[in-house]
């Protein structure tokens, strides 16, 4: 970890980008500097700060909850943690996706305690058997007929907003605060468009049509912001990602794909595919353009999604912040339906299965390497040394925009 030192030569010459110095740094006599401050340490450990992030960010913004394919049938369900709430997602008999707070309207018991499953008839609270249909309506309860004043819709499960895009279901809990959900186009779509230059490059991947070839869930003992910051920079790549840097040699320069608009990191000349050992992956997705072929694009979609685009698959991370020091990350490897069938179906081809393994293994290692690094930082976030935070080197300066966004949302100022 880099720390500023009072003895730093103030006359040190620095190159691009322009130097910026905070008041706090000036107070310590450090000026000028190539280094920008991070957020203060307490924002990574303080339960009150985390609660404010939940209230202002995760319980308001569009939050990527599940893959639509996770809800194949009427009554299929998943439960996910969104901010401080448990959200129950299901599919109605008419085939529509619904999301509810996973809280019984009667005495507050959790309706579903499983992460996933399929209900035959309804959702029934295991405490007093208040029973709700897949639209959330209260359909039965002991003695309900003798309480005709109890409106079955009003006392149905509390609905939250849903929006499906690219094969994922986003939810917004803004209605619980009496607010309209934010514009999906101005938030989720805008983050993708800003990084890719527009939404047009997404068409080549047709993400909504892809199938999950592998899903790995990581339980990470680190604050969600450490994971975002890690994903946004590549200063660490040459140190902790040997396999990735072999495939994407330009990552050794420390400038992440996310540093530039519309830039995809090019595969090395000797590299056949985006696999752990550079062996061939699968055929490029049908819409792949020459510009996008043999390149890796990475996008952070606030607040909790990372999208990785390579010619033959898409790697899609969803974070579920569980507390100041714990984040569950669900990572999907998405491939063309034919690839998933050939590599994982009942009559799987062993050669295709091996290719899928080599394909998944690359970013699984990257994930494990990144999350280990984040877990290495988390315990120090409460250190007195880190009270004012750490520093960002020039190739990390773009992370300051993320920090400003968090501060703006939590404190209402940037």
């Amino acid at each position, binding site marked *: 970890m880099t720390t500023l030192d009072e003895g730093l030569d103030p006359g040190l010459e620095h190159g691009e980008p322009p130097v910026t110095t905070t008041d706090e740094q000036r107070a310590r006599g450090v000026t000028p500097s190539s280094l920008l401050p991070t957020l203060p340490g307490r924002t990574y450990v303080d339960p009150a700060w985390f609660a404010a992030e939940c209230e202002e960010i995760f319980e308001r913004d569009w939050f990527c909850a599940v893959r639509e394919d996770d809800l194949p049938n009427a009554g299929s369900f998943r439960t996910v943690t969104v901010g401080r709430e448990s959200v129950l997602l299901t599919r109605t008999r008419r085939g529509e996706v619904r999301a509810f707070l996973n809280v019984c309207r009667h005495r507050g018991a959790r309706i579903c305690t499983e992460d996933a499953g399929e209900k035959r*008839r309804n959702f029934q609270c295991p405490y007093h058997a208040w029973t709700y249909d897949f639209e959330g309506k209260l359909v*039965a309860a002991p003695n309900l*007929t003798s309480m005709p004043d109890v409106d079955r819709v009003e006392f149905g499960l509390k609905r939250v907003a849903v929006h499906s895009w690219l094969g994922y279901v986003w939810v917004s809990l803004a209605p619980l605060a009496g607010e309209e959900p934010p514009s999906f186009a101005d938030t989720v779509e805008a983050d993708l468009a800003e990084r890719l230059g527009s939404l047009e490059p997404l068409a080549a991947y047709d993400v909504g049509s892809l199938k999950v070839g592998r899903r790995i869930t990581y339980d990470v003992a680190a604050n969600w912001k450490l994971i975002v910051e890690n994903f946004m920079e590549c200063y660490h790549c040459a140190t902790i990602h040997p396999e990735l840097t072999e495939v994407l040699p330009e990552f050794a320069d420390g400038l992440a794909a996310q540093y530039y608009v519309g830039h995809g990191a090019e595969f090395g000349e000797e590299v056949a595919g985006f696999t752990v050992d550079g062996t061939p992956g699968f055929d490029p997705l049908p819409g792949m353009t020459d510009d996008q072929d043999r390149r890796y694009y990475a996008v952070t979609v606030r607040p909790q999604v990372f999208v990785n685009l390579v010619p033959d698959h898409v790697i899609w991370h969803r974070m579920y912040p569980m507390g100041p020091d714990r984040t569950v990350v669900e990572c999907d490897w998405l491939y063309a339906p034919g690839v998933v069938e050939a590599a994982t179906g009942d009559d799987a081809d062993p050669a295709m299965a091996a290719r899928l393994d080599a394909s998944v293994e690359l970013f699984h290692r990257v994930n494990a390497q990144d999350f280990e690094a984040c877990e290495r930082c988390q315990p120090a976030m409460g250190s007195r040394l880190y009270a004012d935070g750490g520093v960002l080197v020039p190739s990390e300066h773009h992370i300051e925009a993320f920090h400003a966004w968090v501060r703006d949302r939590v404190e209402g100022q940037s």
Partner: protein
Amino acid sequence: MHHLCALDDVVPGEGLRVTTTSPPVAVFRTDDDEVYVVDDTCTHQDASLADGYLEGCWVECPLHESRFDLRTGAVDQPPAKRGVRTHAAQVVDGQVWAELSTDAPNLPPGVAGSTAVASGVTA
């Protein structure tokens, strides 16, 4: 005979609770357009069988999955232990009527009921 409802009031494949009798009854209309009338209250706990799930000529209580044969009232599995009382149904000119049973109803604890007609038309 007691008039319960119009046949069109009952969606095929579902049930309708009728409260002009005491205790209330449920009119079920199967997908094959058969009509059955039974006491609406589950014999295990106070729940409306009309809110349950009709499959063939069986209805499953919405609360605890005991199922009742609408032809005989017999129950298939606990927690309900007693059958539900059945009433002879007739559809005449699009109207559903029933000959209300004079047997004692099998009501769950805490639910009052008699075989007397609370209101409505009798013939």
